[in-house]
């Protein structure tokens, strides 16, 4: 089973070059049943990563390009009157897929954003008073441009909290960039095959739950979260949901590392990705502040003392 994960990772890495940690984090996020937010400048491969993930995991995939005039109905779907049948027929929106890529989510108006985000948490949508369940599994991979870019609506903290992780790809190394220029990356996207079946994916997600986390690991996570709740801490405090997300992501990370138990380094590996967007708020999001806030916390506690 673990070899499947590695095969999947290897395949993604043929498309996204030189970003092993980031792709592993993205996969861990999906294995932990979390939604993923990718924030970066345009042209860094956000969309490519999302597509590669969808294809590799063998999921039905839809993409919505968010713009400022996008309406909620454009995402969730709409009932349209059918003259021939003399009835309204539901036209399901792109949200009815296993993996939704919400591209440039912060370009849409808050109204549209919240329609999507509600679906993310409830795993269901209501159209004309009828509740429709979303397919299983249901992932959202959203990308967003940095906030200082023109025409962006920042996501409120409550909605940021719904994303398990936020990652940035960052600039590639010289070596990787050469390969991209040689056409080794993007071009192969169409060649990607599904590595996992749906059943296998669900089993893996179940296995994440079975990873053992010792009591001292729980104390460590709580200790880290407590630091963010101190009066003199400058960021937002971490919620219990955040603590849960840290643990869940760490378990997925442990699974990828082929272990049946969580180690402090798993926590440390996922901590920044899971908490940075929760700790920082508003407009300093794009600065490295979020990053440094989570690192500040990590630096204050030694896992060996738990």
């Amino acid at each position: 089973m673990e070899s499947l994960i590695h095969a999947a990772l290897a395949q993604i890495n043929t498309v996204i070059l030189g970003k092993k940690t980031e792709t592993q984090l993205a996969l861990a996020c999906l294995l932990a049943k979390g939604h993923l937010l990718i924030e970066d400048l345009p042209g860094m491969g956000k969309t490519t990563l999302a597509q590669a993930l969808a294809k590799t995991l063998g999921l039905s995939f839809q993409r919505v390009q968010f713009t400022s005039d996008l309406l909620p109905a454009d995402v969730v779907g709409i009932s349209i009157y059918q003259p021939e049948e003399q009835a309204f027929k539901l036209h399901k929106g792109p949200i009815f897929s296993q993996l939704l890529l919400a591209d440039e989510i912060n370009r849409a108006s808050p109204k549209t954003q919240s329609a999507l985000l509600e679906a993310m948490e409830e795993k269901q949508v209501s159209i004309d008073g009828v509740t429709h369940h979303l397919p299983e599994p249901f992932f959202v991979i959203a990308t967003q441009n940095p906030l200082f870019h023109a025409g962006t609506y920042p996501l409120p903290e409550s909605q940021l909290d719904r994303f398990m992780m936020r990652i940035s790809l960052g600039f590639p190394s010289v070596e990787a960039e050469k390969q991209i220029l040689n056409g080794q990356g993007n071009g192969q996207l169409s060649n990607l095959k599904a590595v996992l079946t749906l059943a296998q994916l669900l089993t893996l997600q179940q296995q994440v739950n079975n990873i053992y986390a010792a009591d001292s690991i729980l104390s460590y996570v709580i200790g880290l979260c407590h630091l963010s709740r101190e009066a003199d801490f400058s960021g937002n405090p971490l919620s219990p949901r955040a603590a849960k997300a840290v643990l869940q992501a760490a378990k997925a990370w442990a699974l990828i590392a082929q272990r049946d138990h969580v180690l402090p380094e798993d926590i440390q590996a996922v901590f920044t990705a899971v908490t940075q967007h929760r700790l920082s708020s508003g407009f300093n999001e794009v600065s490295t502040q979020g990053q440094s806030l989570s690192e500040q916390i990590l630096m204050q506690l030694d896992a060996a003392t738990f």
Partner: protein
Amino acid sequence: MIFNTHNKAIKVNEVKTIPPSLALNSTTHWLLLVSQLINFSLIMAQLTSWMLALIALCLLWQSAILAGLFKRPVSGVLFIIAILGCIALAISSQTLGLLLTMVHLLAFAYVLKTLELKKRGDFYQLILIGLFLNASAMIFDQSLAFASLLIFAILVNVSVLFSFFLLHENNLQDYSFPLKGAAKLLLQSIPLTIILFIVFPRLAPFWQVPLAKSAKTGLSEQIAPGDIAQLIKSSDLVFRVSFSNNTPAFNQLYWRALVLENYDGKQWSRLSERSVEDVLANLELNPINYQATQGESTVYQVIAEPSYQHWLYALPVAQVTQAQIVMLPDYTLLTKQPITQTMSYTVGSYLQTPMDLSLNEGKKARNLALPEQVNPKLRAKAQTLRAQYHNDEAIIQQVLNDIRQKSFSYTLKPPPLINNSLDQFYFETRAGFCVHYASSFTFLMRAAGIPARVVTGYMGGEYNRNGNYYSIYQYDAHAWSEVWLAGKGWVRVDPTAAVSPERVEQGFSSALFQQQAALNTDIFNLQNYRHIAWLNFFRQQLDALDYQWTRWVIGYNNKRQLDLLNRWFGHFSLWKLATIMALAIASILLWLWLTNRSQKIKPNYPLWQKNYLTALSLLADKGVQKVPQQSFDEFAEQVMKYLPKVGVSFKKLSQTYKKLHYQALSAEEKQPLLAKHRQYFKQFKRQIKTIKK
């Protein structure tokens, strides 16, 4: 709360510890100011006026800072003030003496440190200096009343510390809470204090405590008519006496202190102006042959208050066995060190034993010597007496009768005498007190050819029924005569008894007390209110309490300690005691160290975690520290790189620790792993010992 600053590798969850930068809230600040006021008021009597002014200024400054009127001074300003203050101190150290200079320095440091509170350490230092200042105030006053004040001061100081710790727990606004806490703490410390007080060895200090250069009090070595009046104004305690047997009658309580054999026409003084060292050296060269004692001795304990003099008080003929006390040929007692602290000594007095049955020629001449051309009238009177009577005792009787019958009066406010003329007193003013009578009488005796001398000391004392002891105050100062009679030796004659018999029968009469009270300007002195019965009773009770305190607490010296311990535990020597104490202290320190260590590594940690943390701190000592966010494997690699000697064993230790700590293992699985882990830990410890820093 434990503060670990040295071990940075293991940064234990610091959520609840106090940050190193100091942020006192206003409650603590004001409490601190109050505690400083109290501390300074206790040491105030020892400080010079310019130092007091400086202290007042600094305290005002501090309160202005607290009230938000000023900012905290920069350290440069403080430095300049400190330098200037030290220079001023150095200049005045000549007059102050070493001890007082040091006390001044302490007080100065204490008040300046207040303006420089930056770190937590500064605050602790300040509290410690304050407590030390309190302790040093005890050098100057050891009475019960002062000790109680000190305990109160310590309570306030501790409560400042208490409020400092509390303010980190919650936002504290209440003043009573730290006070209560500190009181509880002090109460809890009482048993330990008592044990240490009784058992802690009272070794002699390793260095000489500098003597307080304090004004000598009490009797002086010269006396002229009118001199003792100064003493009579004072109601300070001089000494206390408790008799263990044969309590003499009140009119026998002539406490001899000084024998004055020299008369220069104006004043009586001790035989030559020799220093105490000379007297002692002379004694060693010419040991005295004491008269064989007769009759039963009267044994009593004297507790003398500090007088900064060498003279002790005793009834004649006194015998002492204490090493630091010597007996002089004139039957007075002398200590080798001046009395700077309350001093206790036991005396056996043989009241029936005559002093000097034989008198050598030199001594006789000395006690007959009179300067020429002084008091011609008295001299003429003596000569007529000598012509009239051949018997010395008859002459004495005649003079005493004279004093009794003529219109002499006893008063504390005598009219002044020109040139201390005894003639003027004896034939004109005829009003005076003991010194006038003793001087005139002794003069008459010498002029009549009878060896005579003036003795000063104290007469009588106030009996305290509660404590069964006598208190002798300065106003009991007295002067009388001793005449030498063949076959009887020195015989005490108190001419004051002739003019005022009640003075020597009952002590001060109420009329005299009123006179004395009028002279005394201290309105808070309870001595001035003797005529109010309940107040007098209250005063006596307080005095009895102070007596017990002086006797049992202040007077608890190493001899008494050994006596007590011998009685309780059998044979005990000072060194045995010291060894036992040293062992006890060492074991307490060891225990504290061990608990501190185990607190650093939380006691509920499992063994493997304790081992790992110990290994971490050992590695940190060798300079390889784990950064908190470093993973175990990364750190093991780092150790491998920098300390290859322990690299392998540490890596194995780290791996077994990881498995034991984070994996879900059954007990059977854990057992062999733990055994391995222990083995690696032992190996690691052995190896790391071989590495030098």
